[in-house]
C-alpha cells in the first residue's frame, strides 16, 4: 500500500487502524525512504507545534511580573546606596566631632553666663541642662554656657528657686558666697544667700538635697519640708521643720510672713521695692508680723504695718546726683510715742 504524507501524520499520531499501523511499523524498519519521510514530517509537526506553543505564552504579563521584582530590588539597592553614602560622609564628621572638636571644646575655658534680677523683679531662666531657675530680686546667678562632663555647677548670690532636671549621672551644685554648697541630682529647692542677711537658708520643697556649709564641714541631708539655716556669724548650721510655702511664695509674686521679725520684713521690702529701710530703735526690730502681700504698694504695706503696731514712718524724696542718677528712696520707721 502506498502511504500519503497525511497517512504518515495519522501513523505518527497513532490514529491508523491496527492493520495499517503494523504495515507502517514494518516500513519504518525496512524502508529508509519511508523512515526519512516520517522523520521529516515529524520534524515539521514539531516545528509548527513548538511555534504554536510559544505563541500562546504571554510574555507581556510575565515581563510585568519580572520588571516589578527588578524595580523593587533596585529601589532597595538605591536606599542602601544612599545610606552607605550618608554613612561615608557622616562617619568622619562624627569622628572629627567626637575626637577633635569636643576635646577642644572641653579643654577651652568655659564661657560663663550671668543673669541678675533688679529690685522688685523675679527673673525666670532655663539652664543648659533644662533645669529651671526663678531668681529673686537683687540676686545674681552665674552658670557655664555648657555644663562640664561630670558636674553641673552654678554660683548664686541672693535668692533663687531651683527646679533641677533629673540626671543621676551629673550632680547639680549651687555654690553661694562663703562656699556653702547645695547639692542635688534632681529636685526642687530654694536657696536664700544674701550676703547682707544674718543667715543663709536652704529650703527643700521636693526630693532631697545635701547642704555643705563651706569650710565648716558637717554635711546635712534635708528631707522634704525641712530647711537648713546657716548662721553667718557663728558658721553653725541647724536643720528645722519649715513651711515651705512661706519660703517659696516669692517666686509666685507673693510675700508671706508668719510671725516674722520686722527686721527681716524690712530687708525683704527693701529688696522688693528697691528702697533703703532704716529702723530706729532696737525694740522695733523684734516686732513680729503675720501677713501675706501680693500686689500691694510699699505705701499700702507700710500703712498696714502702722495699723497693727505703734509705729510711724517717713519716706524721703529721691535726690538727683551729679551724674544724672537718682538715689534710692529712704524709708525711716520709728516707734511712735
Amino acid at each position, binding site marked *: 500500500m502506498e502511504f500519503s*504524507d497525511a497517512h504518515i501524520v495519522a501513523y505518527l499520531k497513532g490514529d491508523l487502524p491496527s492493520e495499517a499501523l503494523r504495515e507502517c511499523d514494518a516500513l519504518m524498519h525496512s524502508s529508509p525512504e519511508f523512515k526519512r519521510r516520517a522523520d*521529516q514530517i515529524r520534524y515539521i509537526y514539531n*516545528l*509548527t507545534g513548538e511555534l504554536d506553543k*510559544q505563541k500562546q*505564552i504571554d510574555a*507581556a504579563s*510575565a*515581563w510585568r511580573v519580572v520588571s516589578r521584582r527588578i524595580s523593587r530590588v533596585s529601589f532597595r539597592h538605591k536606599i542602601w546606596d544612599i545610606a552607605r553614602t550618608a554613612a561615608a560622609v557622616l562617619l568622619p564628621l562624627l569622628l572629627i566631632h567626637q575626637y577633635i572638636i569636643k576635646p577642644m571644646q572641653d579643654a577651652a575655658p568655659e564661657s560663663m553666663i550671668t543673669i541678675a534680677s533688679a529690685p522688685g523683679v523675679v527673673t525666670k531662666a532655663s539652664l543648659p541642662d533644662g533645669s529651671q531657675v526663678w531668681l529673686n530680686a537683687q540676686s545674681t546667678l552665674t552658670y557655664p554656657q555648657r555644663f562640664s562632663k561630670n558636674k553641673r555647677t552654678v554660683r548664686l548670690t541672693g535668692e533663687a528657686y531651683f527646679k533641677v532636671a533629673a540626671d543621676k549621672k551629673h550632680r547639680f551644685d549651687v555654690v553661694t558666697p562663703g562656699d556653702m554648697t547645695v547639692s542635688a541630682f534632681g529636685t526642687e529647692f530654694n536657696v536664700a544667700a544674701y550676703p547682707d542677711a544674718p543667715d543663709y537658708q536652704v529650703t527643700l520643697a521636693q526630693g532631697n538635697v545635701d547642704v555643705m556649709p563651706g569650710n565648716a564641714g558637717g554635711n546635712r541631708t534635708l528631707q522634704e519640708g525641712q530647711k537648713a539655716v546657716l548662721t553667718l556669724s557663728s558658721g553653725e548650721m541647724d536643720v528645722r521643720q519649715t513651711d515651705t510655702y512661706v519660703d517659696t511664695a516669692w517666686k509666685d509674686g507673693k510675700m508671706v510672713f508668719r510671725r516674722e521679725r520686722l527686721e527681716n520684713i524690712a530687708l525683704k521690702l527693701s529688696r522688693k521695692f528697691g528702697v533703703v529701710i532704716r529702723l530706729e530703735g532696737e525694740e522695733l526690730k523684734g516686732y513680729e508680723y503675720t501677713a501675706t502681700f501680693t500686689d500691694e504698694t510699699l505705701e499700702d504695706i507700710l500703712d498696714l504695718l502702722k495699723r497693727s503696731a505703734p509705729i510711724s514712718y517717713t519716706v524721703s524724696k529721691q535726690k538727683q546726683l551729679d551724674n544724672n542718677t537718682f538715689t534710692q528712696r529712704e524709708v525711716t520707721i520709728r516707734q511712735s510715742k
Partner: protein
Amino acid sequence: MKDNTLLDDWFRKIAFNDDQEAFKALFFEFYPSLCVFAERYISSPEMCEDIVQDTFFQIWNNRKKIEVASSFRNLLITSVKNNCTDYLRKQSIRQRYLDKQPGEDYSDSPEEIYTVRELESLLQAALQKLPENSRRAFELSRFGQLTYQQIATEMSVSPKTVEAYISKALGLLREDLKDYLPMLILLYPGFFQ
C-alpha cells in the same frame, strides 16, 4: 538563522550600562522559547513560566558578574536547565516515591532552543511557497488545531481533499526544508503532538 551579534549587543548593554530596555528586549525574545524548553523537564507550564521568570531575574541581578563560557544563548539555556533540575531535586526530596523523573526522554537530546522569530522565519518562507489551499489546510491543522473533518467543513471540501491538501503541503515543506531537517530532527526525538 541565529542572530548572536544582536544577543551579544544586548548582554553588553545590560552588563555595562544597566540597560533595562535591552533586558526587556532580551526577555521578549527568549521568554516563550525558554518556557517551552523548560517543559522538557517540568510538566506544569505554570511552573515552567515561574522558573524562567526567576532565571531572568537572577540574570539581571548577577549581570555584573556573569561569566560566559560559550555563548549568551547557551548561558540562557543552561541557566533555565539548572533551575529546572534544582527544582526537580527539591521536588524529589519531597516526593521520593516518584521513581520516574519527568523529562527523562530528553536526557540525550542537545540543548537548543528556537525563538518565535527564528521559527517563523524558517517556516514562513516555506509556507509562502505552498499553493493557497494546501497552506490554508495545513495552517488550520497545525495552528488552528482543527480535525480534517472540521477543516473540510471550513473549506467546503471533502475530508479526502483535505487529506490531499495536507499531504501536498507536507511534501512541499519536506522538499523545501530538507537542508535543515537531518540536523533538526535530532532536537526533538520524542516530541510529537
